[in-house]
């Protein structure tokens, strides 16, 4: 599957905007992603391993929080996972 990396987190995955990962579930894909890029871990997960409240995950265009199996949802190679953190910029002094 393709995992889209948002701008604020790209520096933790070598500047890439997308990463290809072969995994069976969303959780497994994220585990692989953070194993390969350990610095990313604290930005995505809390100390207890929960996805942080200001980071949203979307499988294709669907919010993972609203999928019946949530992060245990199985994924196919053609699926995309988007990581969408909150950004506040606007007036940008």
């Amino acid at each position, binding site marked *: 599957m393709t995992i889209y990396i*948002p*701008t*604020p987190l790209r520096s933790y995955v070598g500047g890439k*905007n997308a990463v290809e990962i072969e995994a069976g579930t969303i959780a497994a894909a994220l585990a692989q992603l953070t194993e390969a890029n350990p610095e990313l871990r604290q*930005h995505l997960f809390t100390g207890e391993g929960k996805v*942080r*409240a*200001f980071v*949203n995950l*979307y499988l294709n*265009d*669907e*919010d993972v929080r*609203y999928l019946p199996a949530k992060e245990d949802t199985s994924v196919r190679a053609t699926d995309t996972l*988007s990581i*969408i*953190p*909150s*950004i*506040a*910029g*606007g*007036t*940008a*002094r």
Partner: protein
Amino acid sequence: MATPVESIPLPELTTDDLSRYSRHLILPEVGMEGQRKLKAARVLCVGTGGLGSPLAFYLAAAGVGTLGLVDFDVVDASNLQRQIIHSTKDIGRKKLDSAEEKLKALNPALNVVKHETMLTSANALEILGDYDIVADGTDNFPTRYLVNDACVLLGKPNVYGSIFRFEGQASVFATADGPCYRCLYPEPPPPGLVPSCAEGGVLGILPGLVGIMQATEVIKLILGKGNSLAGRLLLVDALEMKFRELKLRRNPDCPVCGTNPTLTELIDYQQFCGIVPETKEEKRLKNGIPQMTVKELKQRIDAGEDVQLIDVREPYEYQIAQIGGKLIPQNDVPQRLHEIDREREVVVHCRSGARSQKIAEFLKQAGYPNVANVAGGILAWADEIDPSVQKY
């Protein structure tokens, strides 16, 4: 789709209006009635910066009758790269006055209401209450949550846009049955984890792109036409020039718009976002690193002391402005420790004091016994010591 514009009866169009808006009038989706709705509409733009500039410009051009502007900032040279409502001659002028002048020049019939204040829990309900639609073009999390909660409590749609570097987000929150910003993000990131545009930079055109998407959504809401972005988050990546769309849902457990809301009045948003006023002790010592004021640094240099001052910015920043520190860019510090004398006090500085704090902490861990950080960096130096030092 119902329009949030409440004015009944709708105002008549003048002969000037008929010629000015003729390209709207021949559009079946606008027509006479739509143009009269626009004339009746009252829209509040929170911020007249990167997003607010194109937003306010196009709303004024389209014939929105009343535009409220909230800002308390003055125009700075570094704004002009993207805040197109302001011109070079406006540097140092209040953004509100500069924006009003441009908007009235474009459309003299426009009613501009200036709110020269920071939006707070104490004034938000009163200010927002006067408008039909709110467009959020702010640059910080506390104001974003404040605008969201106030819109939900007042039942006003919140047309949202946000940008970072090359990426933007847009949506419409707090419509009658759509989600709100808190449904999407229940909590803000802890301070420091997500860089601001001032730290991370932003492509100047991007706020134009996102601000105009916001303006489009405002106009559609007023007309009651088309499909609004409510329930959808539009993502734009300007580098790839890719647009993507994600589904947003109203969260039944949302503290402000859910079925059993726990938040029924505005709160302290600085505190909610983890921003606590610094105590005297923290001002002096941060994570164990003494914070040197620019005044203190100046006094020591003036007294003839040979201060070991290390500048951890990038070479291109050094070219813009410098205050006599030895340049070792932050990422080079670990390999260039031999250039920093362990036996002497090390004073580290950067642009704002944030990067240098991290490097000061790193040096301390690396065994340097005496490390201080220049609080406020070059920016504070330019403000308090030498105004000829270029701010950027």
